[in-house]
């Protein structure tokens, strides 16, 4: 029985609960209470009178859209009323103001069913939400969005409460909405201050914060953030760049969400452009630097070594982040921190040749251009030009020291001068690096040919670059390297042999070389050189000189083995070796000519005119230095001998035998000069005389040009001693200084001699006449010579 009664009670309770749940279809209303249920006491508002939530409504004229006025309007009604107060009077608005405050706070953190104190956390929270910058106030007619769902104050069981009820939503409304999204959070009706509809209440105001970023840059091998600066610095290859990036929360609140950040890069030559690393998402408290990407941390992208590839660029980094603040979702970035790497260089062009100074044409020369970059950066793309300037003999090149010219003045214009011809050998565009490397057009050596050119012609080469430096657009031209076309004077021995190294009564025999040069003519394609008409009998080697007149019209070869047809050589049995032609010494002493002429007269003074000397006399000098001239040709039948081995004789004029018909040996004119040294003035072109230099040691020489000191030929040029000298008569000397520079012209004239020693038959005939007149003609030497055909 007891069990039956208990079961009945339980069923009754269950039925009651079911009925209660079934009659509340709007229980899901936003304020957490059911439809028509009091907010604070959760009692029904059904069947009772409904009143304005605030007795006098919420006049637009009282609050407008001013948040502060709205807050004060509502809070004043809360402060000036009480639940127990009379209504009309100070009790009407207590529940309404409380309802507005608590439902505006929303239910995101749970609904607040308590009556708020006039001042305190509940009101503070409500004020903060109303003051949320994202919340806007708007007067309009938005009651239509609430259908008939409104609010009403009511009284039941002795308490006042507010419930959501069905009623009039027309008339003017004050809406609270999100400025950023447009979403409506709360609507109040003007005439009654009734909250309308099923709005959720105001959201929590978002934290208010703003992030600032900073990027600084510092140049130095060691990171030093204190030295970092914003903006752009200047750097050069080899410098290390250090970046420092950070993000700061400038508040005023702690960040309630993270910002995504990354590092932007521009201007790099190593592929960093477009790489946003490092990157991350972080947040920070108010005032904190919550992202630090510092070079001092060794981050790979915070350190960069400037290379030549960066020259001309500006490498930059900055930090970028999103959102830029709690109220702005856009992306922000710090200013770029940059390192400008400007061009900084100076180029110096030079040119070198594998031959220098004097060159006899034709010749080839390798010309090597070079450009030095003194750095510190590579050059811009630079145009360069290797130039050849040919300057005629007698003229000098313009701008011998090189220099600079304006960009419009090209190298050939810069070097232009009278009598010069300019030619571009090579040109191109290149980038020159301080370490000597080059990109672009390579600088190659140029092989240049110097054809037959007159002596004194100058062949110059210059290298030019433009722009010369990072700070100039000028051309820079090297000092030209010039080669001067010279010649190799020749000598010819005619009518007799050339014998060297043979002992004389004055000097012992010695090994003497015969050294002359050969020349090639590009015009005739032949070789030309010094030569002897007959034999060469050298005690030492022969270099260059042909015998048997092999060079008389030029030769196809300069090979001595083919040119030494009458050169007496000491054959070693290995056949002709061009390098060992000669080496045939004559051991017998040369005839003592001076002994054949005994002096019988003196020459007073230091100079004498042969014309003043008597015929058939042998003179001796009274002065150690005697100048001999000949104002008139030596007449028919006149012979004069000057025999003074102690004196140095200088021949100052031509000595010519008179060109006349001779009837007998006695008509042959003849001059014999026997002296310690014999010197010939540069103006003398013909000497018809025997020349016997009888000095010993360093003396006993014949100097063919008195302008040049014997044994010191350094001063010889093509402009000195440049008249051909012919000596007709026997010549014997300890040393023979042939300083004439005549001949050696262009083409076939390349073989023209500077000196000609011609032993004519008149010397033999006169000697025969003289000997016979003096009773005898002894044979002093006999030599078998090879036949010549």
């Amino acid at each position, binding site marked *: *029985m*007891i069990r039956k*009664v208990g079961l*009945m*009670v339980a069923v*009754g*309770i269950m039925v*009651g609960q079911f*009925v*209660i749940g079934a*009659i*509340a*279809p*709007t229980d899901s209303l936003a304020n957490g209470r*059911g*439809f*028509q*249920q009091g907010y604070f006491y*959760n*009692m*029904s*508002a*059904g*069947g009772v009178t*409904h*009143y*304005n939530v605030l*007795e*006098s*409504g919420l006049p637009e004229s009282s609050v407008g859209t001013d948040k502060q006025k709205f807050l004060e309007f509502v809070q004043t009604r809360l402060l000036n009323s009480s639940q127990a107060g009379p209504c009309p009077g100070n009790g009407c608005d207590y529940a309404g103001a409380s309802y507005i405050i608590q439902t505006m706070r929303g239910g995101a953190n749970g609904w607040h069913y308590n009556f708020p104190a006039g001042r305190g956390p509940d009101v503070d929270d409500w004020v903060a939400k109303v003051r949320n910058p994202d919340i806007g106030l*708007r007067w*309009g*007619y*938005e*009651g*239509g*969005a*609430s*259908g*008939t*769902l409104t609010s*009403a104050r009511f009284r*039941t*069981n002795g308490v006042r409460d507010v419930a959501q009820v*069905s*009623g*009039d939503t*027309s*008339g*003017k409304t004050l*809406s609270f*909405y999100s400025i950023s*999204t*447009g*979403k*409506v959070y709360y609507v109040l009706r003007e*005439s*009654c201050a009734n909250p309308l*509809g*099923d709005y959720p209440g105001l959201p929590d105001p978002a934290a208010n914060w703003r992030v600032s970023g900073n990027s600084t840059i510092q140049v130095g091998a060691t990171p030093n953030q204190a030295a970092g600066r914003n903006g752009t610095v200047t750097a050069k290859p080899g410098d290390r760049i250090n970046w420092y990036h950070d993000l700061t929360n400038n508040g005023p609140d702690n960040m309630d969400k993270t910002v995504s950040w990354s590092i932007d890069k521009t201007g790099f030559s190593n592929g960093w452009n477009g790489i946003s690393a490092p990157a991350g998402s972080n947040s920070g408290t108010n005032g904190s630097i919550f992202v630090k990407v510092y070079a001092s941390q060794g981050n790979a992208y915070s350190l960069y070594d400037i290379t030549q590839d960066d020259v001309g660029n500006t490498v930059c980094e900055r930090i970028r982040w999103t959102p830029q603040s709690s109220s702005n979702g856009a992306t922000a970035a710090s200013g770029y921190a940059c390192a400008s790497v400007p061009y900084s260089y100076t180029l110096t062009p030079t040119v070198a040749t594998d031959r220098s100074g004097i060159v006899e044409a034709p010749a080839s020369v390798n010309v090597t251009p070079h450009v030095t970059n003194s750095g510190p950066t590579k050059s811009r793309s630079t145009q360069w030009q290797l130039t050849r300037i040919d300057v005629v003999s007698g003229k000098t090149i313009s701008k011998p020291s090189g220099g600079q010219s304006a960009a419009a003045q090209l190298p050939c214009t810069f070097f232009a001068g009278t009598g010069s011809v300019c030619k571009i050998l090579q040109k191109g565009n290149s980038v020159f690096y301080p370490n000597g490397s080059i990109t672009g057009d390579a600088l190659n050596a140029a092989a240049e040919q110097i054809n037959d050119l007159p002596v004194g012609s100058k062949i110059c080469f210059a290298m030019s670059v433009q722009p010369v430096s990072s700070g100039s657009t000028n051309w820079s031209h090297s000092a030209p390297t010039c080669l001067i076309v010279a010649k190799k004077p020749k000598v010819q021995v005619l009518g007799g042999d050339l014998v060297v190294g043979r002992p004389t009564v004055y000097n012992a025999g010695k090994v003497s070389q015969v050294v002359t040069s050969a020349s090639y003519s590009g015009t005739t394609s032949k070789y030309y050189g010094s030569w002897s008409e007959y034999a060469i009998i050298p005690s030492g080697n022969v270099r260059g000189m042909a015998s048997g007149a092999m060079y008389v019209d030029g030769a196809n070869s300069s090979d001595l083995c083919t040119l030494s047809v009458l050169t007496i050589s000491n054959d070693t049995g290995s056949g002709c070796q061009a390098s060992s032609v000669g080496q045939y010494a004559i051991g017998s002493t040369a005839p003592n000519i001076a002994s054949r002429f005994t002096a019988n007269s003196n020459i007073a003074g230091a100079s004498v005119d042969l014309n003043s000397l008597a015929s058939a006399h042998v003179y001796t000098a009274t002065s150690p230095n005697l100048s001999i001239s000949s104002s008139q040709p030596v007449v028919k039948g006149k012979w004069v001998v000057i025999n003074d081995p102690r004196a140095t004789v200088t021949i100052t004029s031509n000595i010519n035998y008179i060109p006349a018909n001779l009837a007998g040996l006695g008509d042959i004119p003849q001059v014999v000069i026997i002296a310690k040294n014999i010197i010939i003035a540069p103006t003398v072109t013909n000497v018809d005389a025997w020349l016997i230099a009888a000095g010993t040691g360093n003396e006993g020489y014949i100097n063919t040009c008195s302008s040049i000191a014997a044994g010191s030929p350094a001063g010889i040029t093509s402009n000195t001693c440049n008249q051909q000298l012919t000596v007709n008569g026997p010549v014997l000397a300890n040393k023979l200084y042939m300083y004439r520079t005549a001949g050696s012209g262009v083409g076939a004239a390349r073989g023209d001699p500077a000196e000609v020693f011609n032993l004519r038959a008149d010397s033999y005939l006169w000697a025969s006449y003289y000997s016979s007149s003096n009773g005898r003609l002894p044979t002093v030497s006999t030599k078998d010579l090879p036949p010549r055909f």
Partner: protein
Amino acid sequence: MKRRPSKKAVLITSLVLLALLLAAGGGYYYYTHTKGTKSDQQSTADSDKKINDALALSSEIAQIAQSEGGAAAQKKIDEKISQADTKQKQAELYDLKIATLYSSNDPAAATKALEYAYKIEEIDPTYKSALTIAEMERDANNKTVALKYYELYIARSTSSDGSSLDPTNKAFYEQRIQELKS
């Protein structure tokens, strides 16, 4: 032989009946003080559905306005108007159009809203439609017209369905009439 119940059984039965009476009384008290009367429950059932339908529609329109813009929302409401089977429903949808104009921050909201307000007045004239026109004309500084409709509002609210009109709410607008007349 009829057996008489014992005193103990009678006592227990009496206590059970008392408990049932107390439970029924408590349940009735709870019922009446939390959910109103049974007649109230029945009368609010239709109202609940109407309210829920209206809130669902306004929520849908608000989402369209936020995602696609006010024009799309207005278009959607127009579709609903064309499907409405009563003038009252059409009037309510025009009311929603007015609300949507303002919630979309339409720059021509005031002009268009007044047009819709007159439309409502045309198809379903009530004290509400009169009030809306009165308020809007007052905003437009058309005092004479505003006064006319404020008075119409008062008249309608006292003659027809104005039973729900709060006396103090009525007083709010009577005050406004006096302001316009002065």
